[in-house]
């Protein structure tokens, strides 16, 4: 099911939490929601899951509108709310059965679904314990299990990997990725490498408005513009090397990094690349090319650029 959001706006009293945002998520797409605290991520998710109503704008999920068909929409969404609230006095198995029944899983499928969730989320050792006895990471797994129990078309996850250990994070990412192939997934997170690892598309919001929308690659290109290379050359003196590289027509600037001037940062002119030219230069001068690495702008930098104004 596709999610189409148009002109979504939400006021809390006089404060504008979400300001006229529009985006579309298609089936088979994993959308990463990024933004600093208080940017409006959670509010948007609450509106998508029919928990609160928007002040203006529309949300269409599949053929249904969130205003009119809440029952159907709620059934097709699996939602992991922020801070992962759970009925902590219930045992894990009982809790999953309860959620499954609420979400209309038929009794013949029930055992199978619960078993599947326990296996996928690694809850086997803890399945008879009460939720209040579990550690934070295990509670998070229960939260994920309850969101996915009815095999929903749409998954909306508010910080799905918070509190998990590194192994589990990798597992859950793999799981989300594989689910994302035929479902619609929206996840929010603060962890930037996670977005890169799992999401097909990134949406950065700041102060309730969308400031960037695209794949990690397109965002990088937009932010970067010019090619940056780290080059290390041996076989010549520092001055010779710098002069020779500066003579290449696509090179705009050369910055020595090490004291002997043999490791350099080379910035190319806009929309040009100097990689081949540097290689040819070394061949011609009989120098050894020890390192030639493109410097990527990190996602963190992009994020900071867009959200700190």
């Amino acid at each position: 099911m596709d999610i189409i959001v148009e002109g979504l706006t939400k006021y809390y009293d006089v404060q504008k939490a979400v300001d006229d945002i529009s985006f579309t998520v298609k089936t088979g797409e994993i959308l990463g929601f990024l933004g600093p605290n208080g940017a409006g991520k959670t509010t948007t998710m609450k509106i998508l899951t029919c928990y609160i109503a928007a002040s203006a704008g529309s949300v269409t999920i599949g053929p249904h509108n969130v205003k009119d068909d809440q029952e159907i929409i709620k059934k097709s969404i699996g939602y992991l709310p922020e801070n992962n609230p759970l009925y902590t006095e219930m045992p894990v198995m009982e809790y999953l059965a309860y959620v499954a029944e609420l979400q209309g899983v038929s009794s013949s499928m029930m055992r199978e679904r619960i078993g599947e969730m326990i296996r996928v989320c690694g809850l086997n050792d803890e399945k008879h314990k009460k939720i209040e006895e579990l550690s934070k990471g295990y509670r998070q797994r229960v939260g994920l299990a309850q969101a996915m129990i009815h095999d929903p078309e749409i998954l909306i996850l508010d910080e799905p990997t918070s509190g998990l250990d590194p192994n589990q994070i990798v597992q859950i990412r793999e799981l989300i990725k594989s689910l994302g192939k035929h479902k619609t997934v929206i996840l929010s997170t603060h962890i930037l490498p996670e977005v890169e690892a799992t999401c097909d598309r990134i949406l950065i919001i700041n102060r309730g408005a969308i400031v960037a929308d695209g794949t990690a690659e397109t965002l990088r290109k937009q932010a970067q513009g010019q090619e940056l290379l780290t080059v290390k050359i041996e076989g010549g003196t520092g001055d010779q090397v710098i002069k020779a590289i500066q003579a290449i027509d696509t090179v705009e600037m050369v910055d020595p990094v090490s004291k002997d001037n043999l490791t350099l940062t080379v910035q190319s002119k806009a929309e040009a690349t100097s990689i081949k030219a540097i290689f040819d230069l070394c061949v011609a001068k009989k120098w050894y090319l020890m390192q030639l690495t493109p410097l990527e702008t990190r996602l963190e930098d992009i994020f900071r650029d867009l959200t700190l104004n």
Partner: protein
Amino acid sequence: MLIIFLGLSGFFTWLYGSDVFLVGQASLQSFFAVAYWTLFFFTPAITMRTIAEEKRTGTIELILTKAVSDWQLIVGKYLACLMLIGVALLSTLPFYFTLTNIGPVDHGAVICGYLGLLLMSSAYISIGIFSSCISNNQIVSFLLSLLIGVFFLIIFQALSSNFTGVIGSILSYLSISDHYQSLSRGVVDSRDIIYFVSITVFALMMAESYLIRRNLSEK
């Protein structure tokens, strides 16, 4: 909770004050008079955490984003509380069996008395759930439902004696005690039943409208 309720009502029915032996009649009249008060405190204590606790821990977001509507949630909470009260009342049945061994009992009056207690609890439960919707704090919602309860239990009654005419009769109609007393005496009047049922439905609807406010688009 159940034990406190049973202990209190048992103590006052059998041992203290105008108990069964003092009155010298095989009737549950004294039990019904005691339960009238114990339920008044007992019910808010049950209902206070229904919605308030869900709001405090955030599970309300979890449950309302499942295929459950606000009205279903509130009616579910109401039925759960009513069932608990029902169990509490069922556990007082030994009082009745004991009495039938002591002497002749007016069975109709007993059945009506229980019906009265159940209807009254149902009104208190819905008032309690409404109070629970208003606050995130259990104590606040407990006190609030006692406050609303006091109006129906005492204040309307007291006010009605100071007013004459239409206002007086409206106030006296709103008071719980008249309706309860006629039921516990064994008189089943549709007016009394309608009274309790309408309080229940009205309070539950108020509770829903309070809860659903977050999900209405305001200007």
